């Protein structure tokens, strides 16, 4: 049975590689694995052991190599999805004649047989052999330590994945997760630029954290100078294993309370409908539905929440005058509205899954559905836009004039219409089915990715070239206003042009999102 399940796991890994998302994941995994292999030959395993002993810093080098291995293998596992993958879940294994304990045992044994962990084991064994050759640690100790280290690393990664899985079970959990991840990235990025990170306190904290991790503990047990320290390292490694196993067990059995509302007011006509009716009376039901889709999507909610802080961070962390910061934000307004909902705007229909098949049955032209989606996106994107607009006014208050306000408005309108025209075409021409509830995995076609990248990079380039004096920039308000008017006509013309295109491509759109209609 174990052999069959292990084979199934490898077949699934291979099957995943054949999808386009899988190819990206595969590429990343190969890239990271390649880097690991290079690292292994340069510093790791046997080589690392030899170098470590030669320079007289066996423990330090072993610790660094093991920490790198642990971090890399854990991140690869997050891409591949170890234990909790659908085919290896407890629910899936219930279909087989296995008892509860056996299911847990099988699941984690099979998951620990993933190539990534075998690779980690190989590296650790290489190091153990190196230490044996150089007489630092006998292989009878090194071998079990390498095995224990690998399994403890697996337990920690599995526990982490289980926690992420639990968080994704309810909406705000996913949001918390993304905020934590983004917060972490931003903190690291900002800290990296500050002198504080290089200070002794942070260094001591990082060292201590590695000491208490499986990597630090295993390195000490394998290569410390005295046997007392080695024993202490071994005990810490066992404790790490116990902590990992307990965390995994708790994360697996924990039942988080879902934040979703199960009951509510009897009326289905709510704030969404009122807002939609105000925005567009003709398309109100469609706009209300689109607003619901936007605001119930974690990715969009995350984008709406994070757009303003990120944009403000980009402008305000510049060590320049308020005038300069204000001019940066003035330019950023070109893309603010679009970026807030871009993740959905470049592929509106893809988020609706089979539901997209409902629209051709409705007594409205399909292009009206697209218009409603765009309207909803712009309406939601206008909130972060207004906040950035307010920041511009505040930062440039010394130089505030009619020209500045006119430029800001014209720039916002032009950018918004430009990008939503583009995204409407992408929605029609490059649809892709998206998992609405998933926070991971790619949601855009390559064309859409390209557009988003161009939007972001283009804005950054503009920032570099145009940001400077607000007054000088605002002199261009008249040209920008003309550009906005031109964009308005381009948008309207596009929608007219898109109507027959969308009608003609309806079946291809459905095919791409729902699947072949033949039955």
């Amino acid at each position, binding site marked *: 049975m174990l052999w069959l399940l292990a084979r199934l796991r490898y077949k699934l890994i291979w099957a995943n590689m054949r999808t386009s998302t899988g190819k990206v994941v595969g590429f990343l995994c190969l890239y990271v694995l390649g880097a690991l292999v290079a690292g292994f030959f340069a510093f790791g395993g046997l080589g690392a052991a030899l170098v470590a002993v030669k320079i007289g810093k066996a423990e330090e080098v072993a610790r660094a190599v093991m920490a790198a291995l642990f971090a890399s293998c854990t991140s690869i596992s997050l891409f591949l999805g170890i234990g909790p993958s659908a085919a290896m879940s407890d629910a899936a294994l219930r279909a087989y004649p296995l008892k509860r304990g056996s299911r847990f045992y099988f699941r984690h044994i099979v998951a620990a047989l993933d190539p990534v962990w075998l690779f980690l084991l190989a590296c650790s064994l290489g190091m153990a052999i190196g230490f044996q050759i150089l007489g630092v640690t006998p292989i009878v100790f090194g071998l079990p330590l390498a095995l224990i280290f690998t399994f403890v690393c697996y337990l920690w990664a599995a526990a982490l994945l289980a926690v992420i899985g639990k968080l994704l079970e309810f909406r705000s959990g996913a949001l918390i997760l993304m905020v934590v991840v983004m917060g972490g990235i931003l903190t690291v990025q900002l800290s990296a630029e500050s002198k504080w990170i290089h200070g002794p306190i942070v260094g001591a904290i990082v060292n201590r954290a590695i000491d208490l991790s499986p990597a630090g503990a295993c390195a000490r047990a394998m290569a410390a100078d005295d046997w007392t320290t080695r024993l202490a390292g071994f005990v810490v490694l066992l404790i790490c294993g116990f902590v990992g196993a307990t965390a995994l067990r708790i994360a697996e059995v924990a039942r988080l309370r879902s934040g*979703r*509302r*199960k*009951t*509510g007011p*009897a*009326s*289905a*006509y709510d704030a969404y409908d009122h807002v939609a009716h105000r925005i567009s009376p003709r398309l*109100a*039901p*469609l706009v*209300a*539905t689109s607003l*619901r*889709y936007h605001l*119930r*999507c974690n990715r969009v909610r995350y984008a709406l929440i994070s757009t303003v802080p990120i944009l403000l961070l980009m402008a305000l962390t510049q060590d320049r005058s308020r005038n300069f910061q204000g001019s940066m934000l003035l330019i950023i307004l070109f893309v603010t509205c679009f970026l807030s909902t871009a993740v959905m705007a470049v592929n509106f229909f893809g988020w*609706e*899954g*089979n*539901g*997209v*098949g*409902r629209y*051709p*049955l*409705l*007594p*409205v*032209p399909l292009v009206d559905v697209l218009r409603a989606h765009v309207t909803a996106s712009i309406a939601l994107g206008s909130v972060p836009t207004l906040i950035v607009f307010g920041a511009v006014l505040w930062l440039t208050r010394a130089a505030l004039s009619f020209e500045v306000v006119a430029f800001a408005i014209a720039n916002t309108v032009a950018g918004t219409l430009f990008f939503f025209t583009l995204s409407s075409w992408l929605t029609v021409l490059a649809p892709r089915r998206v998992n*609405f*509830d998933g926070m991971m995995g790619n949601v855009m076609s390559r064309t859409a990715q390209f557009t988003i990248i161009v939007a972001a990079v283009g804005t950054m380039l503009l920032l570099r070239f145009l940001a400077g004096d607000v007054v000088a920039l605002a002199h261009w308000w008249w040209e920008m206003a003309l550009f906005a008017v031109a964009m308005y006509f381009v948008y309207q013309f596009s929608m007219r042009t898109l109507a027959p295109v969308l*009608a003609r491509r*309806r*079946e291809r759109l*459905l095919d791409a999102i*729902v699947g*072949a*209609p*033949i*039955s």
Partner: protein
Amino acid sequence: MNQMQQTSAPAIQITGLTKRYGDFTAVDNLSLSVPSGMIYGFLGPNGAGKSTTIGCLTGLLDPTSGSIELLGERFSSDAVALKKRIGVMPEGLALLDQLYADEFLVFQAQMFGLDKKTAQNRTDELLQTLGLADSRKKRIADFSTGMRKKIAFAAAVIHSPEILFLDEPFESIDPTTVAMLKEWLRRFAAEGRTVFMTSHVLETVEKLCNHVAIIKEGKLAWNAALNGVSTLEYGGQQYASLEEVFLTITGRQDSSLSWM
């Protein structure tokens, strides 16, 4: 069931309908006429072209050739006014999964021209009758298969259409609800409206439908009235049940498994 109010123009008139996907012909020169006030069973094995035909009849798909008339008017995918007069429960159900049940039904009703109050009232009635009142604030994505079928059915009838297209309407629904839905459909047809449905449950079709057509490989193989008929004729022979006719047309599969 026999109080049909047949009008001069048939409810559905299909002439030479063909739908191709590249080299594959899903529906091949299909012609049918369905009078008003009828429950019309449209049968066939998997892959015969039933759902493709319904897709063409409801504006989901564009026919490669042929014409469709609904309620005496030429139908195409952009016939917006005519779409308001039909209700559809499509294959795959096409539900907007992220909406709550009541939101979805109100949306559907409003899109078909019902005012806010009527939409709300009908939604309440339908949810209550179909046993979904307790789940009204649940995402459709979280519904069971049977509940999804019920919601799709409710969405098809909420605007009181003149023709109802149902693709496998009773699959996965509990027997009590199925009995109720059948009664609704009989009353619906008795009022002169038309039901065009597919099903693989031949006993249900035999008891419910007035008329039945069987297609095989996209072509019409047989069509006959079922009302008050004790035997069914196909190819000059008499058959005791619809199942016998169906198996004769589509071919029996007698192969057996040695180990079963």
